[in-house]
């Protein structure tokens, strides 16, 4: 399943860079390139050769980890991405933690309080959470919490000029904590709150909805009736038996959530000046930085494919029945 997708992604990005632009060498070289530079790119990428040869050259370059040079930063795209990836991962992880940490309990409450005011309120919130434009929400948060109240910083990962934590994982929160720089930790935490919450909203709404319907479906199962009849403690039934059966459908959504989170990160990072892949993608696309554009597309697609494998594994861990059937 993964290999055809990877191949397809290579073909797609190849078409975008090599076939569609009228003069791909000029496009890859950027607007300010000299004729000599364009000629160099033409030779390097083999644009004077047949299309299938070009494709083989393209695949070989990527297999070597060479994603080309960014016109914008004048550095290898792979370096740029490696440099920026931790920022996006940190943001996405924190957002997922918030989304699952709040979404699952709220979904359980909503499911158990079926058709009460609490359920209605949570349903309105979850439908609203999926309808809100994340870039607008980001601006509203900035307006309220940064500009009006001054509680949280407006942009960036750390205050300007503040020292970076020693680089262990690339996650500022973990790095500063492990190295004992609590000041930096507090600063990084303050910076990540708004972007992470903005990014988490849509995922939270999705998780809430799937957990809720999972709970409602599980509650109708015979084993729950049995457990109630057998006098199991209510808390054990809820958190041990019902929850585990209910979050299966929510977990299978994580793949889709990942996709929507990357899309969300594009807008959210651009607004909070978060130095990650999302803002890099926006810069690359708006600046017609072809190599960077294609590398981002490729990497996002590949990551998505692997996230889906991880979801399948996770699915099997939560639901051992899947393994028995095989």
């Amino acid at each position, binding site marked *: 399943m993964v290999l055809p997708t990877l191949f397809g*992604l290579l073909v*797609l990005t190849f078409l975008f860079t090599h076939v569609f632009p009228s003069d791909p060498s000029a496009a890859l070289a950027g607007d300010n390139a000299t004729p000599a530079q364009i000629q160099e790119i033409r030779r390097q990428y083999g644009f004077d050769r047949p299309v299938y040869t070009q494709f083989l050259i393209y695949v070989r370059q990527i297999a070597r980890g060479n994603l080309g040079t960014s016109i914008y930063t004048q550095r290898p795209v792979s370096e740029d991405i490696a440099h920026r990836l931790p920022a996006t991962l940190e943001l996405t992880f924190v957002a997922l933690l918030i989304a699952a940490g709040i979404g699952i309990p709220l979904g359980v409450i909503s499911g158990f309080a079926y058709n009460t005011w609490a359920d209605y309120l949570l349903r309105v919130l979850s439908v609203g959470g999926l309808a809100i434009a994340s870039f607008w929400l980001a601006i509203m948060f900035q307006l309220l919490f940064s500009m009006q109240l001054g509680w949280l910083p407006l942009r960036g990962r750390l205050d300007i000029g503040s020292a970076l934590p020693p680089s262990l994982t690339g996650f500022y929160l973990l790095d500063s904590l492990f190295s004992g720089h609590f000041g930096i930790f507090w600063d990084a935490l303050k910076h990540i709150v708004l972007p992470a919450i903005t990014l988490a909203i849509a995922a939270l709404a999705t998780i809430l909805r799937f957990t809720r*319907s999972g709970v409602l479906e599980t509650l*109708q199962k015979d084993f729950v009736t049995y457990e109630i009849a057998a006098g199991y403690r209510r808390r054990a039934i809820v958190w041990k038996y019902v929850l585990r059966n209910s979050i299966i459908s929510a977990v299978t959504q994580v793949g889709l959530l990942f996709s929507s989170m990357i899309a969300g990160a594009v807008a959210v990072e651009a607004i909070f000046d978060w130095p990650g892949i999302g803002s890099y*993608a926006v810069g690359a696309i708006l600046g017609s930085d072809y190599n960077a554009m294609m590398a981002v597309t490729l990497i996002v697609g590949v990551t*998505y494919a692997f996230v889906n494998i991880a979801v399948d594994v996770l699915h099997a861990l939560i639901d051992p029945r899947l393994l028995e059937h095989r």
Partner: protein
Amino acid sequence: MLVIRKLLQDYSALLGLVIIAFAVGVAILAPYLAPHPLDAFQSHLAVRLRPPSAEFPFGTDNLGRDVFSRVILGTRGSLEVAVLVVIPAMLLGVPLGLIGGYYEGWMAGFIMRITDVFLAVPQLVLALVLAQLMSPSLESAMIALALTYWPFFTRTVFSETRRLKTLLFVDALRCIGVSSWRIMFLHILPNTASPIIVRATVGMGFTILTAAVLGFLGMGATPPAPDWGLAISESRHYLPQAWWFATFPGLAILAVVLGFNLLGDGVRDVIDPRLRRSR
């Protein structure tokens, strides 16, 4: 008819329907409803960045244009984008899903692999790339959105077709010599109508959101068009003073998308009683 009557009994679906109907009404009558219809293009620098008042209920923007009028005038564009993206995506995606689901063999496999590739990259990223390759404009944005939304229809129709083609009525049709195309388009397609309708309704809301992001990033509507995403983008330079300039276009997006989502959920519940139980 039963479907419509049931839909009207579901409060949230009804609310969705009312919001959509209201938005469509506003879109059609926009030039008559807007107090300053000419503010789509004209600027009045003397009254720039005025806070909300009786004359300007939503305040004025950086060029002195009435935000209330521009929110009303922007409704049409948003709904147009939604329809002009989702309908072509549906016309492209549904037949591909039927073919991919009905036939076995290399072509069906090929179609579904392409679908997988498109679904592997977030629609927003792919749409941004495509729009940029076609040189940014509202038309490019719409083409890019349609070219990236069809796989969602293909996926939906694919799994429905896979399920339906094993049913007895399809075997019966085959036995009496009905051609494959006839079975697909006259007998299986009508049975996939409900998930397609749900997908299309939710897709319109989703498209409005994505189109707003494109507009916000300067890859969609161009000034002076009264586009909601574009307005929010322009408003950023005038914050925190002109909070109204950013707030109201965003609320308009929220309301319309909410309408489509509520309606989509309602339709799903009404036409699929199995899900209604667990709602």
